[in-house]
């Protein structure tokens, strides 16, 4: 849970520097899109509505950082992404970058269905900023990574969608850009694939690459990013801790939802309650482990720090699988008569949980909840960590259960009797 990229010797150098970015779109009240109309009304003044997509946005991203850009649909985050990727031009402000940027707004953009994989890989490589020679020299590596060497000469129109995704992904990995600009579209869809993407991003991050992730999935922002910023209404609303970004994002969403149906009993309102100090899994001997064997108990040791005064807090431990299904959930309150925590107080949550999870990847979350005035609940979701349950047993379903179920052939005589 190393969240800081600040190493000894001060912060890492800035690789993206954005200053005063401004962008507005002129939306014509009556769009003239033919020369005929233009000729018919040569003197008509076009009436435009100015739509501000970004207002004076400035920020820095440091080398080796996993930086999140969050915001609701229409907040301006996609416009910002496109300006960073040199697809749109900012009206005002400037961007400076160090190193080569590769935008991944969508997998396989620029693939030509009529051309072979070989040709497409080279063209795409150049598109990602490689020189033609570099792109050619990495061709084999790309095809190997995608496990598509045998189909190198096949036209893409004859590829299956799975093969296409593999190829596009391999190009992305091998493009080896210094700064990667990733749109959330990559993170959704096929979960197994999204996981593979994320694993690669972690690898890239550890290799000192900088990754900018644009998303409205707060889970992704909280679990992946070192730092994040929130864009709201074309403006930079907050920049800093991903938890804070997520909290403010939820608050914005709730504020808007609240207009529709106020006063419907206890409402859950997001708020900052606590932070994770440590989240460990242990084996039977008490040694920290990263992953758990199938059937072996899950031994937890969590340390959570209150960030404000908490009265009667409730802690809900949840394990979620990759399909976002909550497999189980445990609700606990403070033991030994304590009712209150002051800001800075810590609680330890530890114990053993019987493990009937099927092999696969899981996420461990903790929701910290406290009652608020008017019967509201202030909640905060903390993504503690992820882990893998490994084993060779049954993988179907969500959990494996102890069962005494047998199959027996029924002899014919027995039926007659």
């Amino acid at each position: 849970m190393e969240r800081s990229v600040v190493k000894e010797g001060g912060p890492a150098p800035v690789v993206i520097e954005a200053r005063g970015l401004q962008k507005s779109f002129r939306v014509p009240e009556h769009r003239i899109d033919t020369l005929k109309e233009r000729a018919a009304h040569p003197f008509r003044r076009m009436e435009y509505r100015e739509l501000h997509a970004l207002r004076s946005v400035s920020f820095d991203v440091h080398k080796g950082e996993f930086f999140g850009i969050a915001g609701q649909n229409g907040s301006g985050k996609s416009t910002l992404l496109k300006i960073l990727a040199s697809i749109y031009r900012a009206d005002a402000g400037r961007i400076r970058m160090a190193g080569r940027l590769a935008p991944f707004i969508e997998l396989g953009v620029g693939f030509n269905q009529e051309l072979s994989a070989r040709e497409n890989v080279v063209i795409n490589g150049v598109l990602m900023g490689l020189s033609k020679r570099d792109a050619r020299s990495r061709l084999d590596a790309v095809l190997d990574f995608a496990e598509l060497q045998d189909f190198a000469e096949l036209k893409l129109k004859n590829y299956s969608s799975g093969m296409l995704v593999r190829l596009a992904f391999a190009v992305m990995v091998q493009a080896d850009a210094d700064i990667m600009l990733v749109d959330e579209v990559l993170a959704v869809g096929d979960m197994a694939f999204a996981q593979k993407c994320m694993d690669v991003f972690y690898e890239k991050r550890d290799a000192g690459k900088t990754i900018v992730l644009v998303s409205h999935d707060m889970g992704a922002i909280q679990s992946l990013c070192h730092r994040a910023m929130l864009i709201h209404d074309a403006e930079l609303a907050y920049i800093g801790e991903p938890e804070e970004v997520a909290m403010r994002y939820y608050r914005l969403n709730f504020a808007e939802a609240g207009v529709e149906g106020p006063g419907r009993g206890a409402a859950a309102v997001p708020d900052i309650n606590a932070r994770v100090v440590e989240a460990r899994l242990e084996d039977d001997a008490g040694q920290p482990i990263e992953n758990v064997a199938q059937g072996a108990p899950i031994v937890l040791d969590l340390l959570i720090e209150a960030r404000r005064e908490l009265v009667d807090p409730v802690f809900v431990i949840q394990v979620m699988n990759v399909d976002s299904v909550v497999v189980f959930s445990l609700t606990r309150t403070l033991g030994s008569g304590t009712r209150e925590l002051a800001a800075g107080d810590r609680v330890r949550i530890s114990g053993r949980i019987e493990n009937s999870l099927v092999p696969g990847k899981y996420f461990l979350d903790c929701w910290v909840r406290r009652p608020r005035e008017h019967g509201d609940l202030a909640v905060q979701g903390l993504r503690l960590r992820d882990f893998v349950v490994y084993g060779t047993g049954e993988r179907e379903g969500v959990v494996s259960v102890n069962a005494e179920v047998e199959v027996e052939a029924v002899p014919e005589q027995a039926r007659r009797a």
Partner: protein
Amino acid sequence: MSGDTPDLTLREVPGPSALGGGWRRSLELLSLIAVADFKKAYFGTALGYLWSIARPLMLFGVLLAVFTQVFRIGSDVPNYPVLLLFNIVLFGFFQEATITAVTSIVTQESVVRKTQFPRLVIPLAVVLTTLFNLGLNLVVVFIFILAWGIDPTWTWLLFPLALGLLFVLTTAVSMIVSSLYPRFRDTAILWSVAATVLFYASPVLYPTSAVPETLGDILQLNPFTPLLELARLWVIDPTAPGPIEAAGGFVHLLPAIAIYLATCVFAVWTFRREAPRIAEQL
């Protein structure tokens, strides 16, 4: 490779433009895409090349029949059949390239909207692919010319110069129409009509000498007039009047040259102006 110690100097990001990402990248993309498109056209189908030469040849057959048998203009012109074929192939290059270029940027929409693709590369790739095509067609034309009994002269070596002028004009017009199309969608219809008008207003079917004087002045404004005459003089008929002679002096040639240059300047100006905002127009 960026190496182990990447350069950490901050550099200005200029935003999208005609040659976004630099000259070298644009050129590499251009060559890759033009070659790929060309291969696609010729090696994709069994009759690829045959189809591409079939169109000018058929047009040639029909026009030859009409203009030698019905209107009989052709009978007075020396080597009319080869001249006609030659002109059709040259003008056909211009027509095919520009008409394909009009919608090219919109056809490549996903690349324009989702990557930093140098905008200029798109229409240029169209022109370049068509140029390869022209090269192959010219092989057939030159076989025809030799078979017709025209002897090669040293002026054949000058022909690439005329081809260069044609290429530049074609590129300029492609740039104009392709950058206007995202904003004004009727550019495609207007241009297909304009290209047809231009076909008849250029000395493709007839020599300049066959045009009455009143219309001749208008014809002299057309940059294609001196261009095609130059090609004819150098390749088909060394005795034909050159562009200067046909225009009646160099001064009369100036308007055509001015229009040619103005088209090129306008092309660069329009494209540079439109390129940064094309992604928003789509």
